[in-house]
């Protein structure tokens, strides 16, 4: 079975690079397995998987595997980053509220001055894309004015 697969695979390398004999193809599987066991590192083994079919069949038989968990630090970084992003979000929302408040308050004042009809017309004329809190706020102020 193994012989078949190796024969099916195109092999131009040995013929074209005959001056440089392919030493590692000549090593027996057991030796390659020893070498892979010495490598240990999962990333390196994963890379070995895609080198050739032979390596691909051999790598899953490795017994000793070292998984370096350095993502603990990166995870910490990520959480801190998310925290900082939260902070920036908060700052942004504060700024947004400030700006929005700056828009709403004069409108409310305008509504108070102009009375219910004008304020209604203002709220309807304000573009639909603007935030709903704007129209609600003016509506509430209009209701207050009615009362």
């Amino acid at each position: 079975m193994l012989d078949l697969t190796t024969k099916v695979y195109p092999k131009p390398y040995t013929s074209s690079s005959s001056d440089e004999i392919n030493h590692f193809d000549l090593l027996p599987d057991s030796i390659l397995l020893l070498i892979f066991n010495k490598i240990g590192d999962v990333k390196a083994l994963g890379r070995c998987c895609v080198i050739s079919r032979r390596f691909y069949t051999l790598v899953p038989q490795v017994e000793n595997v070292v998984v370096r968990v350095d993502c603990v630090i990166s995870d910490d970084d990520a959480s801190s980053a998310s925290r900082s992003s939260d902070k920036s979000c908060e700052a942004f929302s504060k700024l947004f509220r400030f700006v929005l408040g700056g828009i709403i308050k004069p409108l409310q004042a305008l509504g108070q001055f102009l009375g219910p009809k004008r304020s209604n017309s203002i709220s309807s004329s304000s573009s639909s894309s603007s935030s709903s809190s704007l129209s609600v706020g003016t509506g509430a102020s209009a209701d207050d004015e009615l009362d």
Partner: protein
Amino acid sequence: MSSSLEKNMLILRSSDGEEFIVPEVVAVMSKAIKNMVEDECASNTIPVPNVDANILAMVIEFCKKHDESEAEAASDLKTFDSEFVNRGQEALYDLITAANFRDVKELLDALCQNVAEMIKGKSVHHIRIQFLGYQLFEILTSNFIWNIWCDRDFD
């Protein structure tokens, strides 16, 4: 005297006919030779086929060093090992085969460790070029042809 010499020294003959006189303690680091000696099926001269004189000399050098420095600090041995295995591809391959064939565990361990260090931290193309003797354009063309071969219709 002759019996003690016979007992303590062995003659190893490489594949190309060269003979090495080696103390028995050094020679039996190879398990294959050890078995031969223990079973007393070996005469004074032990043939070591498949291993030429150069490689056999290297193996004997390694075994001697390990035998001498067994009591010495392990760090010295480590540095010796790393220097010893730092060779070209061909010698490395020959040494690995010899160590495997003669069953010299320490040497095989050191060699495999060296190869593993060479593989670690390399990209796939690097490993292919370095260990399998591929050229870059061969990888590209062969993959290209292979992909066409795989994608074709079987009719």
